[in-house]
């Protein structure tokens, strides 16, 4: 592990809609060193994807707006940079793989065209060299017969292949940070496993740092060094993957763990977290999780918990957890 690469401090991204303000990301902080992988975990709607997009300043406009915080990348605050400066970072220093390759790849252009676009933009090579780079990037993600596939359109490939192409595109300019936004959610189970294997291999080969966004704790356990568990726009627990896995402290994290079906245990009913995700327009007072929490005390209804440092990088935001 190397130096500090990314430091997100109290990031806030809100959506201003006709029905009210949605605090999609509400004070998220975490950090990432070179070659490290951190997992952002949570249910749908918890703000993890928006966090990833916000780092690249790609929050969905016009409703979305980053309203506060700092995103320090290689020491510089990305939120203060101009659009032109951001464009030099996107695709080159920080890349993203999006969830559904059916819609994140442009159906009107060949995959070769789309990958070479990025290469020609950020690197000073032209002509034949570009094609070679494209083929290299396809090989890096283990796409067979890369030389011929370069002229294929996205709809001519399977879902798994398409997602590999997304990976190739993202890694083509050798970024230092890769944001993977639920990269396997749109794939079937077997392909998922293959893709995760691929990502692991690629990570070791290219030494890229990763932010892995997912709802699946199991994936995070195998891929990441650190985990941040998110709920309704806030990080409720974060720490090293072993710490969290063996010693989860936040009620939500514990519930998430419990809901993972275990193949070696027979249960009558699968566990699921009680209650429903509240409406974004009508957030509970105090700790946002308290209506669904089996440990809630009076204080939880009144004030959002302060963060507690449990040592070795393990942090929890819960009134029932003491040091």
């Amino acid at each position: 592990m190397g130096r500090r690469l990314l430091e997100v401090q109290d990031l806030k991204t809100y959506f201003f809609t006709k029905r009210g303000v949605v605090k999609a990301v509400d004070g998220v902080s975490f950090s990432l060193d070179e070659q490290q992988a951190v997992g952002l975990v949570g249910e749908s709607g918890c703000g993890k994807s928006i966090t990833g997009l916000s780092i690249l300043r790609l929050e969905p406009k016009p409703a979305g707006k980053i309203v506060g915080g700092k995103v320090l990348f290689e020491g510089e605050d990305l939120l203060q940079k101009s659009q032109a400066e951001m464009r030099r970072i996107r695709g080159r220093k920080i890349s993203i793989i999006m969830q559904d390759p059916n819609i994140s790849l442009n159906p009107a252009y060949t995959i070769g065209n789309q990958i070479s676009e990025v290469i020609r933009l950020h690197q000073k090579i032209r002509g034949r060299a570009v094609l070679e780079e494209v083929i290299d990037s396809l090989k890096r993600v283990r796409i067979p017969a890369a030389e011929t596939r370069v002229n294929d359109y996205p709809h001519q490939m399977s879902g798994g292949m398409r997602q590999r192409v997304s990976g190739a595109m993202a890694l083509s300019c050798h970024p230092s940070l890769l944001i993977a936004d639920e990269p396997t959610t749109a794939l079937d189970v077997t392909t998922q496993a293959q893709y995760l294997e691929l990502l692991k291999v690629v990570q070791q080969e290219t030494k890229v740092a990763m932010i892995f966004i997912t709802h699946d704790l199991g994936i995070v356990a195998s891929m990441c060094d650190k985990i941040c568990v998110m709920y309704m726009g806030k990080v409720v627990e974060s720490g090293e993957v072993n710490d969290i896995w063996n010693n989860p402290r936040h009620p939500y994290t514990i519930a998430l763990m419990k809901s993972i079906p275990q193949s070696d245990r027979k249960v009558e009913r699968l566990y699921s977290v009680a209650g429903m995700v509240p409406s974004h327009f009508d957030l509970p007072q105090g700790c946002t999780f308290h209506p669904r929490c089996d440990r809630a005390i009076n204080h939880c209804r009144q004030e959002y918990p302060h963060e507690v440092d449990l040592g070795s990088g393990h942090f929890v935001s819960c009134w029932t957890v003491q040091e």
Partner: protein
Amino acid sequence: MKQPPLSGKKVFGRGRETLWRRLHLIPGIPVFILAVIAFATIFGSYITPYGPNVGNLYNQFIPPCWMEGGSTEHLLGTDYFGRDMLSRLIVGARISLSVSLITVSIAGTLGTLLGLISGYAGGKTDTVIMRVVDSWLAFPIILLAILFAVVFRASYSSVIIILVLCVWPRYTRLVRGEALAIKEQDYVALARVAGASPFRIMLKHIFPNVLPTVLVLVTFQIAEVIMLESLLSFLGVGIPPPTASWGSMTADGRDYIATLWWLSAIPGLAIFLTVLSTNLLGDWIRDRLDPKLRVV
């Protein structure tokens, strides 16, 4: 990083979006205009003392009453033959509305029926019908109108026939699309299992669900047919003279545009306002009946 105001108004032009919605979502203005026109159509002959085709050459080219030389005897002036413009305008309204309503009724009924059959039957029938519809729709109607005008003589009925022929495929295509979706629904399957005849299913189950979309189309079609009829009349292949159609009135006035601009301006304005109001009304109906269809 500056904190933007959280009220939402300035952040993404929300204020203006709302203004547009309010402006064109009030049915008040178009309904008012259309009511005036409908009123004129029904009661018009009692308001004006002049016959629309009665002309007195001594009275030719009197300007509208608000201009120099105009009088209150002929509120909107007279034309080349000394015929009262207001009376002719009213007749024109009657023509436009009657032609469009008749056309839309006939074409709508035929087209919807064919669409129901095509959508429900599926398979080869569907393919054949849709092929016909697609190539029909693709064709410039003006050519058909021209052909009719030169082979037969142009008349009120021939205009309606031409317009019906132009317009029926839209209904078929629309209804067929909806029918295809609806026939997959469970209640249709239930009806089939219960032994209902295809005809009964189409009429009782599919048609009522298709109706809202058809109504939206009908409203827009009325506007379109008014436009088409006036176009044909303008070109001289529509309602033949001396009957006053707004289109032919506009054509008559073209040569005098330099001096007697109102001869063309007024009937043309009538067409514009009627079509605009009908379109706005159609938009409003569409929003009320099926927000999914909003294109804008």
